[in-house]
């Protein structure tokens, strides 16, 4: 077995003849530690070629509809020059020995962008080993060989040999030092549209999601959960429930304080509740209705959206952390010759409403636990379940199944902890299923962000200062104020203030970028209008100079680590997109009566998405989104069909939130329960969607989320353009347009 320390590769032989390439892909930023401990790190058997030429690519990424399980193997097969029909993709059960590995987490639009180098090197390394083996066997130099479709041809003699015959020999060779990766012109699979590997099973009904698990001896569980965040179970009466035919047991689920204190408070928040064990899902659901439960509401019992509104209003003048301070906003505010334009924007809580209701299947036995669940982070789930059971991580096995949508919700480990807890209690394998009502009411919601924005307009009609008071219900979403990176106002001040949340929170497609983009792109649009400028021209003006950030070391650590390196690229790409739009005449200021057009542009990492929304006034909701044109710069597009699907999907996701999102909360309780009142977009509301990708050979920069942030501001700006009415919040209702 040989190790390449620079690229974290290992090559070894496999039983029965063949080759295995093992790979470690360090998580962003942790490379330093990995190099020291490389001898201790276990690598993930990643690419395997057997003597028949069958190529197995192991997948640890989570398939949730984004197509990564097809796209990553596509990239490898391309570098390898493999016959795609010989490529098998195998979802592997996650193992705790793969620590720190990028391959174990799926989210942040990073699956391809963060593994791009490693997986290409892996594919190219295997190809070079196979070529060298063939060269050695034929006694020629590697230069006279051609590789295509899993065959290596000796161009001197026209003999050819298949990968399978070479694999064993290749596993004995030293790992080549100089790997040459393909140039984009040489790609044969990348930029083509290979089919989604899931489609065949989906259309036949064979695709197996977490909710479809079936273990011998399995029983079914469902939990009547506390409806108030941080509420507790006071008492319960299970007499009637236990009488129901098919009910096996009823008991509480309350994690001990000492366990809760060790768990991740965001990912592993588990509501208190009462568990019903039954012979079927249906019986468990029905038996829950027979429970009589008393809850202790706790600190959120008296709170509501109205009280949250007051909480935010209260801290408006008492901002907490000053996160950006460029120039001197205070001085400019005091300048009496200027005027101040002031606006408030509200981007409220959002539910996930993932299509497949949350679930997990667990079998606790002999001080170890096996799990079957669709999760975006298998390693994290194993760690948290192990903590909750007070077991070492090695005792937890996780089988990661495809999911019916994740969108950030399936990062959270709550259902796995619950299922493991239940299985341990009843000493049987168990499938835990949440109802749709549970999924809506006990969601881990996108946080609420309110922005109080001020612009200082000089007597000469220039915006010389911006102040953003961001008030949010959580910490992690609010670092994306984004005023300090792209639009070059000479004076910028941002504050970040927290208020206690009403609802438990978590990642939601596009996270803080969705929150920040709305107020930013709406406010800049309002300023453009205030100054009598075209919205695109005004943005170009603001992007034509660099923001003076001062000493980068004074910026928050997360910003230094993640944002600054990408800022220049994101900045250039925003300009490229706007220039492209102008050159292609995609934007026009001409509209008909009752119709309007709105623009927004936002960076998600290094991927930029601009959107032009076309809106008509009228109809049931008071407005109708007729068309959205998305212009995207994401570097190289790996699979055009998947790429378009991600942008379309992100737009539909965001449009759902714009039309029907937010959440009502009274007495600490979520007021919606299912799709009849927590509405989502349906096929008859689909706008026309055009997606344009700027042609690029640069490294792929991610596509799962970037299509979501620009939608709300583009539509809100279009509504203004059509009606003259500024709506500064979502959801937008008919009342807002009266």
């Amino acid at each position, binding site marked *: 077995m040989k190790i390449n320390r620079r690229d974290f590769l290992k090559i070894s032989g496999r039983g029965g003849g063949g080759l295995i390439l093992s790979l470690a892909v360090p998580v962003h930023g942790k490379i330093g530690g990995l190099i020291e401990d490389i001898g201790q790190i276990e690598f993930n058997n990643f690419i395997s070629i057997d003597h028949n030429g069958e190529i197995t690519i192991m997948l640890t990424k989570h*398939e*949730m*509809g*984004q197509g990564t399980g097809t796209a990553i193997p596509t990239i490898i097969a391309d570098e390898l020059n493999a016959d795609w029909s010989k490529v098998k993709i195998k979802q592997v059960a996650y193992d705790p020995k793969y620590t720190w590995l990028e391959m174990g987490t799926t989210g942040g639009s990073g699956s391809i962008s963060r593994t791009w180098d490693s997986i290409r090197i892996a594919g190219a390394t295997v190809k070079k080993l196979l070529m060298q083996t063939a060269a050695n066997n034929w006694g020629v130099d590697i230069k006279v060989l051609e590789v295509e479709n899993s065959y290596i041809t000796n161009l001197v003699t026209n003999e050819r040999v298949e990968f399978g015959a070479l694999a064993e020999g290749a596993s004995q060779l030293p790992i080549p030092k100089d790997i040459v990766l393909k140039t984009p012109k040489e790609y044969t699979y990348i930029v083509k*549209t290979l*089919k*989604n590997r*899931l*489609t*065949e*099973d*989906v*259309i*036949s*009904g*064979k*695709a*197996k*999601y977490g*909710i*479809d698990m*079936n273990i011998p001896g399995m029983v*079914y569980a469902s939990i009547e959960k506390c409806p108030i965040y941080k509420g507790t179970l006071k008492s319960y009466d299970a007499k009637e429930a236990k009488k129901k*035919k*098919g009910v096996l047991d009823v008991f509480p689920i309350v994690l001990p304080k000492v366990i809760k204190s060790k768990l991740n408070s965001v990912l592993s928040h588990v509501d208190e509740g009462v568990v019903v064990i039954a012979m*079927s*899902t*249906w019986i468990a*659901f029905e038996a829950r209705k027979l429970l009589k439960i008393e809850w202790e509401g706790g600190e959120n019992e008296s709170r509501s959206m109205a009280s949250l509104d007051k909480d935010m209003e209260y801290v408006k003048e008492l901002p907490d952390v000053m996160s950006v301070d460029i120039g001197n906003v205070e001085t400019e505010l005091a300048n009496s010759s200027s005027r101040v334009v002031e606006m408030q924007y509200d981007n409220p809580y959002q539910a996930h*409403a*993932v*299509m*497949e*209701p949350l679930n997990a299947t667990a079998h606790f036995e002999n001080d170890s636990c096996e799990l079957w669940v669709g999760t975006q982070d298998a390693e994290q789930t194993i760690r948290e379940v192990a903590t909750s059971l007070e077991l070492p991580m090695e005792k937890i096995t996780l089988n990661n199944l*495809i*999911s*019916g*949508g994740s*969108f950030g919700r399936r990062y959270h480990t709550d259902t796995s902890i619950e299922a493991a807890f239940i299985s341990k209690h009843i000493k049987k394998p168990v499938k835990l*299923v949440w*109802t*749709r009502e549970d999924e809506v009411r006990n969601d881990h919601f996108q946080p609420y962000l309110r922005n109080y924005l001020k612009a200082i307009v000089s007597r000469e009609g220039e915006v010389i200062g911006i102040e953003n008071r961001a008030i949010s219900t959580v910490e992690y979403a609010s670092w994306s104020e984004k005023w300090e990176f792209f639009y070059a106002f000479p004076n910028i001040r941002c504050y970040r203030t927290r208020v206690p949340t009403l609802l438990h929170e978590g990642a939601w497609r596009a996270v803080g970028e969705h929150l920040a983009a709305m107020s930013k792109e709406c406010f800049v649009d309002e300023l453009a209008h205030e100054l009598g400028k075209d919205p695109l021209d005004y943005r170009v003006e603001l992007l034509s100079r660099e923001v003076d950030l001062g000493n980068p070391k004074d910026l928050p650590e997360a910003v230094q680590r993640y944002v600054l390196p990408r800022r220049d690229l994101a900045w250039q790409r925003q300009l490229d997109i706007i220039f492209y739009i102008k050159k292609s005449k995609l934007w026009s200021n001409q509209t008909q009566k009752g119709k309007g057009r709105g623009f927004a542009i936002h960076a998600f990492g290094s991927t930029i998405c601009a959107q032009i929304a076309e809106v008509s006034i009228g109809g049931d909701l008071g407005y109708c989104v007729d068309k959205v044109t998305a212009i995207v710069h994401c570097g190289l597009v790996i699979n055009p*069909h998947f790429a378009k*699907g991600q942008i*379309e*999907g*992100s*737009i*539909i*996701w965001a449009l759902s939130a714009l039309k029907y999102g937010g959440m009502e909360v009274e007495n600490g309780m979520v007021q919606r329960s*299912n*799709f*009849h009142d927590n509405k*989502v*977009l*349906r*096929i*008859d509301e*689909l706008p026309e*969607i055009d997606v344009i990708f700027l042609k690029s050979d640069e490294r792929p920069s991610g596509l799962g989320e970037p299509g979501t942030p620009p939608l709300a501001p583009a539509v809100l700006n279009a509504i203004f353009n059509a009606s003259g009415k500024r709506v500064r919040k979502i959801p937008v209702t008919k009342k807002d347009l009266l």
Partner: protein
Amino acid sequence: MAVYNLKINDSFFPIDIDQNTPLLWVLRDTLALYGTKYGCGIGQCGACTVLVDGLPIRSCSIPVEAVKNKSIVTIEGLSPNSNHPVQIAWRDLDVPQCGYCQSGQIMTAAALLERIPNPNDADINRAMKGNICRCGTYSRIREAIKVAAKHRTSENQ
């Protein structure tokens, strides 16, 4: 509890179950036919759609008692080799993303084409708006239905 001999996908399944059990859960938990999905339980999302005597029915909202003498077709029985025109179109256009809603989409689409062999956008919207897709594959669904309609027409000629 009642005893039924359910006709599903041209086979008969004898079962003994509470007559109020929704067909969805009989299919999934009793008969391990997992292709029909649970999405909401109140007939709002369409993921549980099956054909009952050829009509698209939300199986979460119909008790097994009501279908005891009917012919039920689930996604698993729509065609022998996933070669129903709707499935062929779904395959050719690579419609699914996560795929969870797609059984219901396919069954509803299959029923639509029996009723309206050449649906326009308005027909498609009306028939399909009961089927939610959170991944947003609606444009592909619409296109695939039109492609399936064309193949059905040429098949029947």
